[in-house]
């Protein structure tokens, strides 16, 4: 008998359960008595998918429910309705194909803002992507996936409300935010735009969810940058302090258990994500919404099986200073012969995760819907690396592909610690069966393989000038000075320097080892 990580979840977690009867909405002294239509003291539900069950107690386990079918990611709800906000983006498109291939009913929304912002920088996706119409046709042709797309700006609540009513999503994955720190630091207009788009877009969405789909799960993307990198080395827990964390003051002590940990964002973009965190947390408290707030590490890479099926299915790939993430930019620099740009000391430590692993994380979270009112923060990283180590690794893999890669230190346009400890706790994803599968080297190899193809190198050449950072946190707009150029051998981690420490228990109990079966 196989066991799955979500076997023991019940109707209480399931978006198909319609609450009826005596669920006392926030029973603890703040009752709103929202679902009290039934007589007697029992909580009862109806199942949207199995109306023949009538009214019953929400106690059926996923392992007992025929609607939750076994897959390699745990049990998944049959034909689950998912809405991806920002479906045209790097992650949104990748997830759409992944979920479509798993049998989800996929809907998506985008206003193509990302395409416009990258054009504003004078850049483009170096991996060519087609129009949404053509992408949807390709998804149908090569993977037999139907995608229900609507061009909507998330700030347009009327249009979004109509689409929510049409789709009735059981999961909403919210990628429709501007994902760039430097973009938010260009000037007042850009900062205000980013915060408006991100914060108000999400706030409006929360009200719509309350009114239209309160039982859906919101998977909200945040970033590890919300926490910053405290110089004390205090571990970065998953959003809340554990119960054994205590505040000591004046000879007395209090448990900090369940209190939000401090946030120390590092740009106005990161501030928008912190504001989202509070807005989503409050909405879960007030209205019994359910959410995973994903503190995503820096994403890199190009591969999932679905994306690799055909060139027409590829996701976008940006390398410019605004929208390129660090590993992706390093590989582009390596191919173009630009020495890889470390900012300042290059000793910054960050959490990272490959695209393919990040997509698996999303599926794992979708397979494990939170309970009513549950707001859970998830640290989504598969490894912690120093930036100079990443540069060295890119240089070494680049050498395998015949590139002679140098590394340079340049002035740091950002305001951030360049030498600091980092300790991260990431338990929620392993508890849901997630295991990192893609090593840094493996994904970098895949990136070189794709990006060094002729048609992509030609595109890289065209956007070459957008790679070096010119957006300073101070407001300056200028090229940073070069502080030194090194061969990969000269770049070393100092003895006794800080190392990232990752707490990621990989021996959780409820893991069905699909990969063993595949062998």
């Amino acid at each position: 008998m196989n066991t799955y990580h979500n076997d023991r979840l019940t109707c209480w977690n399931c978006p198909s359960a319609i609450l009826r009867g005596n669920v006392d909405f926030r029973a603890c002294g703040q009752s709103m008595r929202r679902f009290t239509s039934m007589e007697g003291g029992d909580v009862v539900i109806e199942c949207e998918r199995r109306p023949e069950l009538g009214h019953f107690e929400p106690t059926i386990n996923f392992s007992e429910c025929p609607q939750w079918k076994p897959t390699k990611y745990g049990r998944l709800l049959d034909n689950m309705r998912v809405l991806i906000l920002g479906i045209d983006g790097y992650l949104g498109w990748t997830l759409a194909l992944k979920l479509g291939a798993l049998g989800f009913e996929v809907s998506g929304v985008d206003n193509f803002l990302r395409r416009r912002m990258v054009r504003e920088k004078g850049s483009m996706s170096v991996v060519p992507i087609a129009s949404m119409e053509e992408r949807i046709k390709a998804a149908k042709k090569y993977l037999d996936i139907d995608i229900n797309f609507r061009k909507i700006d998330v700030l347009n609540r009327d249009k979004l409300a109509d689409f929510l009513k049409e789709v009735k999503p059981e999961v909403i994955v919210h990628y429709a935010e501007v994902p760039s720190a430097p973009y938010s630091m260009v000037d007042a207009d850009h900062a205000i735009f980013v915060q408006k788009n991100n914060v108000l877009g999400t706030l409006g969405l929360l009200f719509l969810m309350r009114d239209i789909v309160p039982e859906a799960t919101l998977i909200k993307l945040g970033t590890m940058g919300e926490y910053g990198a405290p110089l004390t080395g205090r571990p970065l827990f998953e959003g809340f302090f554990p119960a054994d964390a205590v505040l000591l003051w004046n000879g007395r002590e209090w448990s900090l258990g369940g209190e939000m940990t401090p946030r120390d964002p590092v740009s106005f973009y990161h501030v928008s994500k912190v504001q989202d965190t509070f807005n989503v947390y409050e909405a879960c408290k007030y209205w019994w919404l359910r959410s995973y707030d994903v503190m995503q590490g820096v994403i890199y890479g190009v591969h999932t099986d679905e994306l690799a099926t055909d060139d027409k299915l590829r996701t976008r790939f940006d390398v410019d200073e605004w929208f390129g993430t660090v590993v992706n930019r390093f590989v582009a620099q390596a191919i173009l012969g630009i020495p890889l740009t470390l900012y300042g000391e290059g000793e910054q430590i960050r959490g990272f995760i490959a695209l393919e692993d990040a997509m698996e994380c999303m599926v794992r979270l979708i397979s494990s819907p939170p309970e009513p009112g549950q707001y859970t923060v998830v640290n989504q990283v598969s490894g912690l690396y120093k930036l100079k180590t990443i540069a060295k690794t890119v240089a070494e893999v680049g050498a395998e592909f015949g590139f002679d890669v140098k590394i340079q230190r340049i002035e740091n346009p950002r305001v951030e610690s360049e030498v600091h400890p980092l300790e991260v706790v990431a338990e929620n994803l392993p508890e849901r069966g997630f295991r990192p599968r893609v090593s840094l080297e493996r994904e970098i190899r895949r990136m070189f393989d794709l990006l060094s193809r002729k048609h992509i190198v030609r595109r890289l050449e065209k956007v070459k000038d957008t790679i070096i950072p010119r957006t300073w946190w101070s407001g300056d707009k200028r090229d940073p000075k070069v502080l030194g150029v090194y061969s990969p051998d000269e770049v070393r981690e100092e003895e006794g320097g800080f190392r990232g420490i990752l707490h990621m228990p990989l021996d959780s109990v409820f893991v069905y080892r699909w990969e063993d079966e595949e062998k």
Partner: protein
Amino acid sequence: MIFTDKNFQEEVLKSPIPVLVEFWASWCPPCKMVEPIIDRLEKEYMGRMKIGKMNVDINPVTAKRYNVKGLPTFIIFINGKIVYRGVAAKTENELRRVIEEILASQDEEVRV
């Protein structure tokens, strides 16, 4: 152990040994954080004290009867009577101290 409105009488009020009930809800982060500690203590004190959780949203009757107004609420019952009541997250040490005190006072009663 999971306590419910249905099994409360049998498992808690009629229990021959002391019972610690943690009243909790899914929207309460401090409750989530205390969960692993409760699980650990449940195993450790098995046979001496029954330790478990009760979801106040799914079991509103009991929560109301005991006037649970803040979460998590910890109540220890002996022979159906409340001998301890504490509200808000507690460290493992704090919970342990409470449990040991209750068990020690019980031992004294037995000796008397």
